[in-house]
């Protein structure tokens, strides 16, 4: 006879607790949030230094560069989703929590996006100005990041979970995750390029939206399974 | 240089947006910094229970 599930907590409550916790941790380490953002800014600002100051070249590169930088910034912060929890044993406790693990994982993904994705979205227009993008393209760029960054957090978490506890996981995770990021990159940057070229970008956006939905459904579940494998 | 009217002064020969855009933000930054410092001091004073701006003490 399986035991009765206690009722003094609800699923939603759990979700809120885990998000609150992760945001609290992020607050404690404001440096974390700020540094992901600055990493993004710095990478975007590095390219002109390597490539040279010619504005026409830069304008062509802009969508690609901003998107690649967003991708890298988001990827680099993946380490933090699970590894600190793993190292200090909190993850074991999360795995042993009497709630759906997928739900807790979804909460962690959401707070990861709040902490790393949203600042990038907000910062993107300013960086676009550095590359002299027209207002219209800036708008599309921001919107494409808004749609795309959650996908990065969702998919990235799978990789982070799989590489947990492996030394050098930080780089291994990029190897696993980047191939999955590539479609997001292509359609994200593609939308902006299309809008610069004066073409429609709706097709790109609907593809991004579809990716988002698919990963929203599958990623938490897959990540939960990966965690059980990595820790077990 | 003398300006013929306030309107001319504010338009800055057509560059009003840029000139005032620069000056406004700069002074906003300065004001912000001053506010931050004063606020920090106020919080500290409350926390430490200092009664007043005690800037001096009797030299012995």
């Amino acid at each position, binding site marked *: *006879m*399986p*035991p009765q*599930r*206690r009722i*003094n*907590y609800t699923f939603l*409550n*759990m979700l809120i*607790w*885990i998000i609150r*916790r992760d945001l*609290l*941790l992020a607050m*404690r*380490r404001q440096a974390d949030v700020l540094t992901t953002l600055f990493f993004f800014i710095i990478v975007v600002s590095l390219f002109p230094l390597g490539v040279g100051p010619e504005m026409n070249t830069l304008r062509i590169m802009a969508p690609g560069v901003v998107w690649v930088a967003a991708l890298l910034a988001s990827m680099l912060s993946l380490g933090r989703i699970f590894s*600190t*929890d793993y*190292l*200090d*044993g*909190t993850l*074991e*406790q*999360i*795995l*042993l*929590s*009497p*709630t*759906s*693990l997928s739900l*807790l994982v979804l909460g962690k993904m959401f707070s990861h996006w709040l902490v790393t994705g949203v600042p990038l979205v907000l910062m993107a227009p300013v960086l676009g100005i550095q590359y002299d993008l027209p207002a219209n393209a800036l708008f599309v760029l921001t919107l494409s990041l808004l749609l795309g960054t959650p996908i990065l957090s969702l998919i990235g978490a799978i990789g982070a979970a799989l590489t947990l506890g492996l030394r050098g996981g930080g780089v291994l995770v990029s190897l696993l995750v980047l191939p999955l990021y590539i479609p997001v990159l292509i359609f994200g940057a593609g939308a902006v390029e299309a809008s610069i070229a004066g073409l429609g970008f709706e097709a790109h956006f609907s593809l991004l939206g579809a990716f988002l939905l698919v990963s929203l459904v599958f990623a938490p579940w897959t990540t939960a399974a990966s965690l059980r494998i990595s*820790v*077990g | 240089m003398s300006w013929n009217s306030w309107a001319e002064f504010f338009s800055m020969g057509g560059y009003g947006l840029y000139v005032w855009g620069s000056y406004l933000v700069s002074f906003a930054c300065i004001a912000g910094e001053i506010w931050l410092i004063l606020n920090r001091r106020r919080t500290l004073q409350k926390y430490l229970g200092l009664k007043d701006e005690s800037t001096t003490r009797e030299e012995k």
Partner: protein
Amino acid sequence: MLQGSNLECIRGDRVLFSGINFSIKPGELMQVRGPNGSGKTSLLRMLCGLAVPNSGEIRWNSSNIRSLGEDYFNIVTYLGHLSGVKDDLTAIENLRITSALAGIEIDEKKASKVLQEMGLEGRETLLAKVLSQGQKRRVALARLLLARTKLWILDEPLTALDISAIELIKKILEQYLAQGGMVILTTHQEIDIAATATHQLYLS
């Protein structure tokens, strides 16, 4: 009632243990003993569902714990080598969050009362990273005072604790056992805990 039958654990080329059988009823204590590297930690991780035995079965009231899934975690509290205390949270926050994850929500006042019982008075609002080894461990153990589970699995709970803390843990365990809890424990330190029955499981 927790039952293990014919449990086996293989690591690398080595059979750590095999043919392990036991069963514990409410109010009973099981001490897992054995020298370093005999497989105590490995066994405990199987019992709480983090690892899977190479062969054999673990049953809770005659249903396999695998089949219970997340419901099993309503029954068991595990405390491992790693204490699950986050360095960047204060003692209070740590306790509130770990118990929330275990399904028990408490407010700050309650949390700080529990921490005081664990001898952390005056440290409740320090970040855990500045706490000493033993203080961190106390924060982790405070969770036991709140747990309403039926089975506690504790891997070396006494590490880093001073004598007064060990006394405290002993009292907590005895009280829990008296109320019908079950405890599975490893420790290299001698500790004498009163229970309805104390099983000794030797690994070697």
